[in-house]
């Protein structure tokens, strides 16, 4: 079976995130947890290249050592995912101008496939005609610890940028005791 992989730009982004929000001692603590292999990869990471997804899991686990299994860490994961949704090139800026919330949810599997290989995927089921939102299932992500929370942050931020009011995003399936479940369900609603 092919090893799940992730794009270099996600690894790079995650590393840049904790380096920008934590103080020196915490950064040193996180980096002290990282394997030599991952440190070497981060030093010369190529945004478009594929890396083992376990690198991202390792990064996120190291990340969690700073504030432990707490709401604060959960919030940091969300913020990290959220910042991944910030437009970082002109094409994405244009994309944000053109997309609608519904179209974004429809394209969510493509965004996932852009950044993941052999690593599960999204299924989207829009809510009924009277409601705005979708039931989303992210499946095949066993052992991708905490990855689902990053993606929740990503979804939240993109929908917020697209002007959704009263946005609520909930997840079911992830917990500190089960950080890498096989599947996770999200419910996204806005007014």
């Amino acid at each position, binding site marked *: 079976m092919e090893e799940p992989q992730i*794009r270099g730009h996600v690894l790079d982004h995650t590393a840049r995130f904790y380096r920008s929000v934590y103080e020196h001692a915490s950064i040193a603590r996180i980096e002290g947890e990282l394997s030599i292999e991952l440190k070497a990869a981060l030093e010369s990471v190529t945004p478009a290249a594929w890396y083992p997804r376990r690198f991202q899991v390792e990064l996120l686990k190291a990340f969690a050592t700073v504030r432990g299994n707490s709401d604060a860490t959960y919030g940091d994961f969300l913020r990290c995912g959220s910042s991944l949704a910030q437009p970082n090139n002109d*094409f994405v800026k244009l994309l944000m101008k*053109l997309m609608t919330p519904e179209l974004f949810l*429809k*394209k969510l599997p493509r965004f996932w496939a852009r950044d993941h290989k052999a690593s599960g995927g999204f299924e989207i089921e829009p809510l009924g005609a009277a409601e705005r939102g979708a039931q989303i299932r992210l499946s095949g992500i066993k052992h991708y610890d905490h990855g689902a929370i990053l993606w929740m942050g990503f979804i939240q931020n993109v929908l917020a940028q697209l002007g959704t009011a009263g946005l609520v995003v909930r997840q079911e399936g992830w917990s500190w005791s089960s950080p890498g479940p096989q599947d996770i369900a999200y419910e996204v609603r806005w007014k």
Partner: protein
Amino acid sequence: MTTELSNVQLDDLRERIVDALITMSEFAFGDYSAQVRVDFRSRHVLNGVFASMNELIAAFGAEQEQGRAFRSELEQKLLIVEKQRAAIRELSTPIIELWEGVLCLPVVGIMDTARSTEMTNSLLEAIVEKKTRYTIIDITGIEVMDTRTVDHFMRMAKSIRLLGAECANTGISPHIAQTVVHMGLELDDVVTHRSLRDALAHYVTRLRTTAVGGVEIR
């Protein structure tokens, strides 16, 4: 004549452009294998634009690949040049231990500042390493002697003396001797011998005298 698009057509247009922009975002972070989906079965107005975008991505990818190949080739060549340079450096400063305590540096070709610095460094290191007392710089093979070349030798001799060794020059050709005099260059501080053989004989004698008498007779 204007043609109004229906909402369905507009949504389709928007989705196609969004798909293309997602592909372009992949291209933006360096994935040159990304391709915008073109539906050739239809005669969609955007097909031509998307096909051109794909050509652009492919061309850019090919350029990048070629650039990478050039860089790699250049790095290989630079490595070879550096190796050759190191070999030439070693060959251009062949320091020979003629006798125990006597080193010889035969100089061939043209002396410039870089070569002079290299020679001086190598020679001084060898003097310290081999505990040398006498150094002979043989310039039989030197092509041109001008003020700068003389200056290089003067500096070399001074450095050698600072390490407590003596320095002699040999192999000054009649032509170079004439040039030196003609140009009014001062070589007073440098001991000269007619040939390498003379200089070696002189220093070996002095070494033997020192070894027998314990005191060097000057």
